[in-house]
């Protein structure tokens, strides 16, 4: 192509052309250079695949994928596309099977995605059948490389993607290990359909600037605790980030009790404060950690509320956000109850995160007709480094640094 449709006016990461969010050709290029490129994409939790034959279907970008555990206890992933006519091989979200068979013409596959059977390959009563030259080994859905890190299953279509720990870097790895340090148990799954391009949601996750401005729940109910320390970590590629905060004084219960006394200014206070009655489970005192991994994975610890989020594009202007809430396998009933109550903060109806479901749509609608204009991402300067304050857009710029590098634009 001799005409570049998207015009980045400079190498600076502080300006984002609005057309990047609704251009069809860009979305096509993303399929190749991002989702089928040198990236690790979240597929499922290891906890989802307990026994040999357990499988889940998911997507890498918009490409349908099957993830399955085989007899050798290894996890395999392959495109959910029959080598014959391209139909989906597995239709259910999850299940258990000895092998897979396409419903259309009954071509069958083993758990590693190898084509093992072609119906009527030798014809019927000497008539028809496949030519003798047809070689099953040469046909089959594309296979992904799979890596399991801390119980998270990732896949990549590219042979060139660096090993997962190199891809993430030591700082991000340590922050994942911090949360996923023992066996987990899924407690619920929800999908939120977002009326916006996938990148707007990823930027929102990385944007530590908006948190106390858009989300008024904590300030309205005077739940902000004093002396919060925190920071933002951006890895050298820019694509992964962690934002975290620490409550120095962890006598959380006392500070809540103090606040339960009706304030002088007649401010509304929560009637049932057990919503936020958490327990300390990490020695480092970090009470909030949001971690994102390029292109579309989020690991979240908001107090005792733990979840992973998978960001999947559905066309240019829609995104599916798959939430998986979890606890630890050794949770006490009280700890589990705490997680269930705190989950009111997150998800499609979350006191904190419901707004994130809508703001991307506000941008998507706001930028119609503004193809030649650009967003300003300059809070905290123009760098993509780690930062102690959270009034910064450094990790948003980091996303664009990684994005432009993969897309070569």
């Amino acid at each position, binding site marked *: 192509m001799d005409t570049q449709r998207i015009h980045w006016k400079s190498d600076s990461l502080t300006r984002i052309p609005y057309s990047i969010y609704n251009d069809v050709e860009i979305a096509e290029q993303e399929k190749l250079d991002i989702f089928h490129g040198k990236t690790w994409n979240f597929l499922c939790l290891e906890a989802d695949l307990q026994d040999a034959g357990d499988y889940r279907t998911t997507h890498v970008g918009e490409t349908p994928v099957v993830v399955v555990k085989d007899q050798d206890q290894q996890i395999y992933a392959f495109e959910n596309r029959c080598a014959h006519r391209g139909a989906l091989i597995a239709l259910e*979200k999850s299940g258990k099977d000895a092998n897979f068979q396409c419903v259309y013409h009954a071509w069958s596959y083993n758990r590693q995605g190898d084509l093992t059977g072609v119906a009527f390959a030798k014809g019927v009563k000497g008539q028809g059948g496949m030519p003798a030259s047809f070689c099953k080994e040469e046909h089959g859905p594309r296979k992904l490389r799979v890596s399991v890190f801390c119980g998270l299953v990732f896949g990549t279509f590219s042979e060139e993607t660096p090993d997962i720990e190199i891809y993430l870097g030591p700082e991000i790895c340590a922050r994942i290990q911090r949360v996923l340090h023992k066996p987990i148990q*899924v*407690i*619920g*799954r*929800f*999908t*939120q*359909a*977002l*009326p916006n391009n996938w990148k707007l949601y990823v930027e929102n996750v990385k944007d530590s600037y908006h948190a106390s401005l*858009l989300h*008024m*729940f904590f*300030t*309205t*109910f005077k739940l902000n605790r004093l002396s919060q320390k925190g920071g933002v970590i951006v890895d050298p590629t820019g694509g992964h980030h962690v934002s975290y905060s620490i409550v120095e004084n962890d006598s959380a219960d006392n500070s809540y009790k103090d606040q339960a006394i009706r304030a002088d200014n007649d401010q*509304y206070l*929560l*009637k*049932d404060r*057990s*919503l936020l009655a958490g327990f300390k489970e990490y020695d480092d005192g970090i009470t909030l950690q949001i971690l994102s991994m390029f292109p579309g994975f989020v690991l979240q610890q908001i107090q005792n509320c733990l979840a992973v989020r998978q960001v999947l594009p559905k066309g240019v202007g829609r995104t*599916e956000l798959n939430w998986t*809430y979890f606890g630890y396998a050794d949770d006490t009933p009280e700890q*589990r*109850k705490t997680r*269930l*109550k705190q*989950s*009111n903060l997150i*998800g*499609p*109806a*979350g*006191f904190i995160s*419901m*707004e994130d*479901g*809508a703001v991307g*749509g506000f941008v998507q609608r706001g930028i119609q007709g503004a193809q030649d204009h650009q967003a300003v991402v300059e809070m905290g300067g123009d760098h993509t480094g780690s930062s102690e304050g959270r009034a910064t857009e450094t990790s948003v710029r980091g996303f664009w640094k990684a994005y432009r590098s993969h897309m070569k634009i």
Partner: protein
Amino acid sequence: MIDLMTLCAFNAAYAMTIDSDALEEWPEYFSEDTHYRITHIENENENLPAGIVYADSRNMLIDRIAALRLANIYERQRYRHILGIPAIVQQNSEATYAHTPFMVARIMATGQTDVFATGFYKDKFVKSDAPASKANSFGIVLKERIAVCDSTVTDTLLALPL
């Protein structure tokens, strides 16, 4: 025993309370120690306990309405609930268990109207000695209401209750 017509009248008033934006009255339909949850059929079938809304007290419902009024930011919208006839699945002197199908349309300020949710309420009703309130004069309250949605997907966000 709680008769069918009482359940129908209760549900009709419940729906009108939400749809007419009288949200402050919505918690009056619940017992103090109620359990209210919004989930979907797959979580329910797999016994996954989380909800997109999860409350174990009426006060948590009061707080949710306060948050909607004072804190949360979302585009102006209304619901229209269409409720089916309750199917009484079990009944004894203590409680009545019923399943009631719902269909909820969401009407945005732009005029856009969509089927936002379909599903059923999985309810446990008990008699209540509490004096009749403005909304609830039926002598019964919900000890438990689980709104089990048919779809696993929630469009954009869920602000108003089901």
